[in-house]
């Protein structure tokens, strides 16, 4: 079985985000970019499935600017076998919406015929939490979101999902779309020799037009603002003072 893993290039999760003065978005020029943390978990899971003999090839896909190549090289260095870069914009500030990403991914799935797609649960830039679900709808495949355990057994997979009330286990028919949550695994670091080897692994470059997908956004950004700042607080010297302040504030 082939596994397809969509990986997104996003601002590194440690970077302090700055809103652009013109309100058009967040400043992404010259900031550190990394693979979306959830996607690292998805790549790791695909590698573990390969190590367990349940997957025989891992294809990583990224959609966005040309620089997303670096993200794909990271996936290849971790252990993906080949990569597909879909250049859909040349503007580092343009975010391709989940619906357009899902349409491109559907076209790639039609070509590649994977048995499993492992997505992240959410991209930490747009915080949409939508692409996997949308891809699943477009393909008419089964869907298991927020996975903290993945157990592939032949024609089905048992997936434990992190939900508001605790954990839910479902069994999905293959082929399936799984979106991964934080506690599924701990992603490995790519070793230096693997980083070198990754440079030789195949990376195909395509464009959104190759798949006939219109990536123009459905949601127009009217403005982007900093969130309201909280007023400065105070340091209390003791538990007694804390209780006193809380009583004054009517909080207890």
């Amino acid at each position, binding site marked *: 079985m082939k596994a397809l893993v969509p990986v997104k290039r996003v601002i590194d999760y440690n970077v302090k985000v700055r809103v652009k003065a013109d309100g058009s978005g967040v400043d992404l020029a010259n900031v550190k970019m990394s693979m979306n943390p959830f996607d690292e978990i998805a790549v790791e899971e695909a590698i573990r499935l390969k190590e367990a003999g349940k997957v025989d090839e891992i294809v990583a896909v990224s959609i966005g600017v040309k620089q997303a190549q670096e993200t794909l090289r990271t996936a290849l260095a971790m252990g993906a076998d080949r990569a597909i870069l879909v250049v859909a914009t040349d503007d580092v500030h343009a975010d391709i919406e989940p619906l357009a990403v899902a349409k491109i991914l559907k076209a790639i799935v039609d070509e590649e015929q994977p048995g499993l797609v492992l997505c992240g649960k959410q991209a930490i830039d747009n915080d949409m*939490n939508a692409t996997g679900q*949308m891809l699943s709808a477009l393909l008419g495949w*089964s869907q298991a979101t927020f996975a903290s355990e993945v157990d592939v057994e032949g024609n089905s997979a048992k997936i434990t999902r992190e939900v508001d009330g605790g*954990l839910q286990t*479902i069994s999905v028919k293959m082929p399936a779309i799984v979106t991964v949550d934080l506690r599924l695994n701990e992603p490995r670091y790519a070793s230096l020799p693997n980083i070198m080897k990754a440079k030789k692994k195949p990376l195909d470059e395509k464009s959104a037009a190759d798949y006939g997908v219109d990536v123009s956004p459905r949601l127009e950004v*009217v403005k982007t603002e900093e*969130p309201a700042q909280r007023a400065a607080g105070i*340091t*209390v010297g003791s538990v007694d003072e804390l209780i006193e302040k809380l009583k004054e504030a009517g*909080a207890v």
Partner: protein
Amino acid sequence: MAVLLLAEVTGGELAMDATAKAVTAAQALGDVTVLAAGASAAAAGDAAAKIAGVSKVLVAEDASLGHRLAEPTAALIASLAGDYEHIVAPATTDAKNILPRVAALLDVMIISDATAVVDGATFERPIYAGNAIQTMKSSDAKKVITFRTANFDAAGEGGSASVETISAADNPGLSEWVENKVAKSDRPELTSAGIVVSGGRGVGSEEDFALIETLADKLGAAVGASRAAVDSGYAANDLQVGQTGKVVAPELYVAVGISGAIQHLAGMKDSKVIVAINKDEEAPIFQVADFGLVADLFDAVPELTQKL
């Protein structure tokens, strides 16, 4: 203009708080029809009919809708979509599972975690873990939206909407429910509690997490946790507060042994009063705290619990 609102139904019961908050958001968009779907959903539908501002309730009962599996529930909503301009739900894990699927079936974008309604096509939503708030205008014919409940007050009671029974859509039969592991607790529910006490990695162990629970019980509070506390097994996954966990905005939020990473702040910085107890005076959590106590939690928390 009509709005279809997917009620939060768990095990046949209506989650009143989440649903009533979404009703408040939806009312700004038009006439609200609530859909109660489940293996049993009639009681939930009756409860939803009593929410002020709901004009109609649709009840769909079918085994396939029992555990809110995405495929049959999304198919049902898509089959009803013709009558509505907006399809909305509270931003619970159920809705986040289902509504993007609905949006794709309708070939429209999803607007996730909206925090404010500007007009029928324009919404605010946080991005980058709440470090920016974006106003987005949709050009889609239908708008599919999840609303972040922490930002809306619950609609009151006193409604008397009509209730109509409808049938489920065909079950595509792609997935099956196996089991739930639900932590039973008598404490208030995290996202609707007036007070939340959260513990982080600083608490150090699952046993010592009892310190957090005892303080919470003294305050009648819900218990929350940082990702580090959940990853380390001190607390259950459904207690995680943050960018990728639950978003809370209680009257009082007490953060104990939590450093205050942006991903955690994203889930609690709209709380009315924030208390931080941390032994590191440089911890970023103090930047959002109204009252900061620099202390060892193993001294401060028992003392606080005892003196309250």
